[in-house]
Each structure stands twice: as C-alpha cells, then as structure tokens.
C-alpha cells in the first residue's frame, strides 16, 4: 500500500514537472515575481539607512523577514497553479477514479511545490545577498532553516489550498485561509534565519526546532487529512 502510494505520488511529481517544463511558469512568472518583490522592498526601504548603533543597513537587518514574505506570497501562486492544473478539466476526479490514494495526490503536489520553492529561494536568496548586502554567518544553520521552512510551507500550503481546490472563489479564499495559518511559520523562519545570518540570539535555535516541528506536523496532517479534503466522505 505504501509503495503504491509513493509510486503514484512519484508519477504525479514527474507529470507536474513535465507540465512545468512545457509551460515555463516558474521561470517566466514565479521567479520574476520574486525579483520584482525584492526590488520593491529596495524602493520601500532606503538602502543607505543604517541600524542605529549597528554596522548593518536596515534593509540587511530586515532581509530575513522580507525574504520569507516574498516566498510566502509566491507560495500562493505556486500552490494555486498546482491545483489549477488538476481542476481545469476534471483531472482531480479522474485521479481518484484511477484508484490513486488522496495522500498520493497531496504528497505529490507538496513535493512539486517544495521543489519549485527551493528554486525560488535560491534565486531570491542570491538576489537578497547582492541587493541588500546580507552576510551569512552560519551557512549550515541557514540550510536547516530553509529546508524545514520550505517543507512546512509546502505541506501547509498544499493542505489548506486543497480545501478550496475546484471551488468557486478559490483564488480569494485560498490566501484568506493560508496567510493567517502561516503566521507562526513566518515568525519562526524570520527569527531562525536572522540567527543563522547574524547570530542575533533572538531565540533563533528554538525557532529552528519549531520549524522542524511545523514541517513534520503539516506533512503528517496532509497524509492523514488528504481523504477528508479531496474525497466526498
């Protein structure tokens, strides 16, 4: 049973990546969206403004928060796209009638969303380092923060947007559901990334563990709740 679910999830991942390669939505729409967001943040906060009593610019200081806000907003686009592909022509029902377990559908979608977020984070992260003059104090810690936050965001985003997938008004309902639910992840990711970059000591390590817990929690919730979300029970 687990092997069948994993196999079907892998087929869905391969299919979605194929669609992505054919359409280029990530490279032509999502990545430019991330870069535009960074530019707008640069216009909104004067890059020359220094933190009082510190040696960093305000922009570099708040860069972790701006980075994760950018990723969070991009998440809405990425997950929305992932489910639009299935609801455009009745494919979600067809997947269920093909005998695919709901957990395989949500799991496959979450993996694709996570992969696309990783690409976005690498590009936007590089942009933030260059444009906001960010320095990375503890690269390993930063990797742990990024991986756990990505898994938490992908898991939760997929889970919450599955609730409104295929329903009228999903484009406006989805953000209303996802953004408040993601507040704890955003707070934790910002604090933990700040600690990884500057050793800020604002409970960063504790938040890193919290992020790992969020990642596990949303992954398990997705597997357990998939049936209730995608099936008429």
């Amino acid at each position, binding site marked *: 049973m687990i092997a069948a679910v994993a196999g079907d999830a892998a087929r869905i991942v391969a299919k979605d990546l194929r*669609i992505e390669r054919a359409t280029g939505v990530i490279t032509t729409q999502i990545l430019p969206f991330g870069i535009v967001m960074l530019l707008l943040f640069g216009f909104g906060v004067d890059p020359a403004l220094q933190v009082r009593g510190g040696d960093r610019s305000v922009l570099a200081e708040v860069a972790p928060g701006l980075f994760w806000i950018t990723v969070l907003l991009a998440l809405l686009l990425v997950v929305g796209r992932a489910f639009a592909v299935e609801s455009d*022509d009745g*494919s979600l*029902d067809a997947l269920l*009638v*093909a*005998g695919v*377990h709901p957990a395989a559908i949500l799991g496959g979608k979450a993996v694709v969303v996570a992969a696309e977020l990783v690409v976005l984070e690498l590009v936007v992260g590089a942009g933030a380092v260059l444009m906001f003059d960010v320095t990375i104090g503890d690269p390993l810690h930063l990797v742990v923060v990024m991986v756990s936050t990505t898994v938490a965001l992908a898991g939760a985003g997929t889970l919450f947007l599955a609730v409104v997938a295929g329903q009228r008004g999903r484009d406006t309902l989805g953000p209303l559901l996802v953004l408040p639910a993601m507040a704890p992840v955003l707070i934790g990711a910002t604090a933990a990334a700040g600690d990884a970059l500057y050793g800020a000591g604002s409970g960063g390590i504790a938040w890193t563990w919290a992020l790992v817990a969020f990642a596990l929690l949303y992954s398990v919730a997705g597997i357990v709740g998939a049936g209730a979300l995608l099936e008429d029970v």
Partner: protein
Amino acid sequence: MVCVLGGFPALAGADLDLHANEVAWLRGPNGAGKTTLLRLLAGLGAMRRGRAEVLGADLSVLGDRRWLRGQVGLLGHATFLYEDLTVGQNLEFWAGLHRADPVDVEAAARRFGLDGRLGDVPVGSLSAGQRRRTSLAVLVARRPRLWLLDEPHAGLDAEGRAMVDRLIADASGAGATVVVASHDADHMPAVADRTLDVIGGTVTEAGAS
C-alpha cells in the same frame, strides 16, 4: 440509494440491478440525477442512505469505494486531460496510474488514430473530438469492469460515434457492464440492452429497448 448535494437530494430513490455483458442507457432531462448516479457508481459520491453494492464493494464504506474506483472507467463531460502535455504524454501518465499493459496502450492509441503524428501534439491544440478520442483511448487501455459514460457521443463526428458504439459493444461483449447517460434518443436504442428513466432523482425501468 440517496445522495444529497448542497442540502438537496440529487438522487432520492434509485433502485436498480445491473449485470455483466449489459449496456444500460440512462435517459432523462438535465438535472435529473444521471451524472450523480454515475459518480455514485464510480465510488466518487457519498451515499447518505440506502444500500448499494457495485462489483462487490459496499458504497457506504469509504475503503470499499476507494477499491471500486480502481475497477471502473468513468468518462464524464470533462476529458481529464492535461492541455500542456502531448497526447502521448497524457496516455503514458494515465496508463501508468492504471497499471495498464503497454501493449494495450499501444493498441488503444492505434485504434483511435493517436499513434502517428497526433501523439506528439499538445492536447491544448486538439479539437474537441480528438480530445474525446484520447480520453476514450485511456479508458480502453484500462480495461475496466464497469464502464460509466456520460454523453460519450458528444462532440464526435459520424465516424467517431460509430467508433464509440463499437467500443461499447466490445466492452459488453468482453464481460463488462456499460452504463451510458445520454440525451441521444435517436441513437441509443440501437446501442443499449436496457433503458432506465432518471427523473427527479428517481430511477425506473423503462423496459427492454
């Protein structure tokens, strides 16, 4: 069986037996419950009251319904194809999920004229009839035990309609049960063994056609 959609009983009194080798035609006005009945038989909809067994699966048990879905072929109004993938890629994806034999997939593609240049064309560039043929090829490769077809002749030319008729005859000849919801009163009497009237969420036998 009773199925409730949005607070209203979409199907409120369906009582029927379907057999192997049988082609049953569901006829009735729009909104009568034909599609709801097909979805229930496919294991997609939840039954609120009553008792129903399809291929040995109890429709009131979620685990049974999940198993049932793997045994039926449902072709509804939507084609369930991915517009950005080619015909060949769509066939490959769905055949993989259905664990279909590659030989059956090739044969189905040949049967519907999808094995040549058309196989490399994105589904988004196909006509409605060509999309329908692609969906039917997926269904044929799957070899379901229960075929559930919702307006299968819609959007097809005369040749395509004849192809669907042969397909239905072949499937029932091979031992499958075929249920067809259709408004095509001129065409269906020649295809179906039984006619069932679906009116206001109830299903009644209309006698042999």
